[in-house]
């Protein structure tokens, strides 16, 4: 396969970036998208040029490190996968592929396609936990039965990998789906109810502080989410937030 890659290059956080064009040949449909970039980088290194910097690690769709806006879509054209699980057979010989970093005020570019998502960590630090010590001296794990549907819904929310595709997909760069997933995971479990009000207020406050935009219910986040995190979580967080506010 012969392709034309148009890739965002930016030396560092303060430098001005631009799109550069790289023709590439000999791409096999069995390669993953990131392996295609590996091929490009090897060629650049051998030519004495600097390789394209991008985030990646597990390359099996679970660590949430890889990102990339591919032809305008986070994680590219396929559904329910991350960029590392996208394969080149989804493209055709002669295609032009535009590759940019995830774009959001709260995700500043570090270099080329690598962005800083530490704002996500700070939202979690504001309340994404249950305040229990790790001594192990708690009650027996089976002391509180939890309805299977609630446990499953909690798991589905907890499956979020924190990649940021929801933010990159949103025209407002809102982090509602990400924040709501963590709020929901705990709100659905009895052990998480105890500090549910404080949690939602603190996490939403931090989310706003980080400069993420508001939610206008377009649903783009759900479409692009590689783990299929449901919009229902946002509705649940709004209810939690409202009732926490009334209590407060």
């Amino acid at each position, binding site marked *: 396969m012969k392709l034309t890659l148009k890739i965002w290059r930016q030396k*560092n956080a303060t430098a001005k970036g631009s799109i550069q064009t790289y023709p590439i040949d000999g791409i*096999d449909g*069995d*390669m993953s998208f990131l392996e295609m970039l*590996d091929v490009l980088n090897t060629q650049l*290194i*051998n030519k004495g040029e*600097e*390789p394209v*910097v991008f985030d*990646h*690690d*597990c*390359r*099996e769709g*679970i*660590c*949430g*490190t890889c990102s990339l806006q591919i032809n305008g879509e986070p994680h590219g054209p*396929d559904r329910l996968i991350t960029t590392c*699980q996208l394969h080149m*057979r989804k493209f055709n010989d002669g295609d032009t592929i535009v590759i940019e970093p995830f774009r959001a005020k709260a995700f500043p570019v570090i*270099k080329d396609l*690598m962005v*800083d*998502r*530490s704002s*996500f*960590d700070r939202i*979690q630090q*504001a309340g*994404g*936990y*249950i*305040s229990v*010590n*790790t*001594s*192990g001296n*708690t*009650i*027996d*794990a*089976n002391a509180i*039965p*939890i309805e*299977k549907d609630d*446990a*499953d819904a*909690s*798991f589905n929310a*907890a*499956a979020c*990998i*924190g990649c940021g595709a929801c933010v990159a997909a949103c025209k407002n760069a809102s982090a509602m789906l990400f924040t709501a997933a963590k709020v929901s*995971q*705990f709100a659905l*479990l009895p*052990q*998480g109810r105890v500090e549910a009000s404080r949690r939602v207020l603190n996490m939403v406050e931090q989310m706003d502080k980080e400069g993420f935009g508001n939610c206008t219910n377009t649903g783009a986040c759900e479409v692009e989410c590689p783990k299929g995190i449901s919009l229902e979580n946002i509705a649940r967080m709004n209810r939690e937030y409202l009732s926490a506010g009334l209590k407060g």
Partner: protein
Amino acid sequence: MSKLNSKVPKGPLSEKWTKHKNDINLVNPANKRNIDVIVVGTGLAGGSAAATLAELGYNVKTFCYQDSPRRAHSIAAQGGINAAKNYQGDGDSTYRLFYDTIKGGDYRSREANVYRLAEVSANIIDQCVAQGVPFAREYGGLLDNRSFGGVLVSRTFYAKGQTGQQLLLGAYSAMNRQINRGKIKPYNRHEMLDLVIVDGKARGIIARDMVTGELERHSAHAVVIASGGYGNVFYLSTNAMGSNVTASWKIHKRGAYFANPCYTQIHPTCIPVSGDHQSKLTLMSESLRNDGRIWVPKKKEDAIAIQQGKLKPVDLAEEDRDYYLERRYPSFGNLVPRDVASRAAKERCDAGFGVNKTGEAVFLDFASAIMRYGREVAAIEHIENPSEEKIRELGEKVIESKYGNLFQMYEKIVDENPYKTPMMIYPAVHYTMGGVWVDYNLETTIPGCFCAGEANFSDHGANRLGASALMQGLADGYFVLPYTISDYLADDIRTGPIPVDTPEFDEAENSIRMQVDKLINNKGSRSVDYFHKRLGKIMWNNVGMSRNEQGLKEAITSIRELREEFWRDVLVPGEANEVNPELEKAMRVADFLELGELFAVDALHRNESCGGHFREEYQTEEGEAMRDDENFMYAAAWEYTGDPGKAILHKENLEYENIEVKTRSYK
């Protein structure tokens, strides 16, 4: 006295841990505020240790190369976590979990450590549920269990196929709570590059800020290494791209002994390599072997036709197929243990019977299971004279309900429908049982330097059982290390902050700076990956699933040559003071090139076969592993001497007081 004092407490096995906890020195809560601890790695072991140490009152600094602690590779673990809860009432107990783990490790692990692991396992589940980890539940609301290979009870807790993710996010949330309180200071996108020793004690590290490239000095009263395994010495493995041995290797070079490096687990069911571009390998859960039959063609010409795409596997007649596991192991069939299944696949592929374009794959075929289930369902639903097509349709539904997500994952990667054509699989490097030698307190041979999780050597012997890695990581981090470390730190309550403007920090930082400068200024002609791939090939071919004396000797020579060539000819583009992934890789590969040699040296010295270590010279007539308990029932702990090939061997003899040592037979 030898440095290898395991410090196993006296007394009966089942009372050792309780007694030890009662005997160790504690640090008063007010004094903990004056003590700093560095934790390198934020996976299950490091993340849980950091959170617990901070909760206890110590000042903790965490370091990870990822952009967030949540991305450590523990996140990729699929199957589950073992715990001797006996919720199923099927006769499980601490002793049974202990026994299974020792036997699974082929009698090459330390008895007291394994017993403690089994003992604290139940608490892990209580802890995780309290933290909000959404484990799978039954309709009655109680926790569900599944069964795993090599055991006779159901003791595995799970969260779909994402157990590692959920447990890691639990530890990460416990960390976040402490970060919010100011008790943990996280240094993400930071890589530890050296250990600093002051007056014989570990007192800090040199870390590189991977965004600015700055080398930083961080001091502490103790250093905990929890940086995972070294499977990426093979280049291709199920590890993450960034998983590396650097932290473990650097402490080894500073005096920590490295134990049993040759014990590596090679998992039989992974998606095969599709070409030279391949960057990593993906695991397909072992559970598939319950219903899949493994085969290759009987005739070489058929294998070649399949490799070239001229023949479809479904068109090959039944009598022309070689179900080699069923043929060789009639009693266990397709469910032989991991090491046996892996070696048998390699043997067939080496003989030229591989079934993909690279010749390194075997079939895992669900066709007979689909038809069997289909007929069962047809009978239950009283469908009379169902057509072949109808049976297939019903059977596919059953398979989908059992393994749907794995089949979907396979289809995305390979672009073939595994309901219609057999899956292709091949063994891949998955986990390393060897690692930094530690005593019962998880302390290395460097005072004040501790090691937890996959990075240490202690609990799995020569082979790890499924669902035990997550158990060990969390046991070490939540329940063992935070307490044993206090025995050491009790002497440090009056020490005060450790200064970083000392000759020891100068020396460590300068040595790293020289290494960085050398790599950047080398301007050779080959990329880092070129060397890493070549190292991987040497390791895989000569130090992989089966090893022999000649091959190991060749590997040692080749690795030494490759290492010289690397330092002469490697090309690292860019600068030191910026984001530079090629420089990061070069630093890691430099360490793999040293570890690889010690790995081969260890495999060469161990003249026996045990667990994941198979020496062709030591096998029975049927091709089974032959242990030599008389001469090799010890952990091999290697001391660095300036040359990885000339490491000095220290032996920790393994004594089994509570278990009868037997031959591990699967016939």
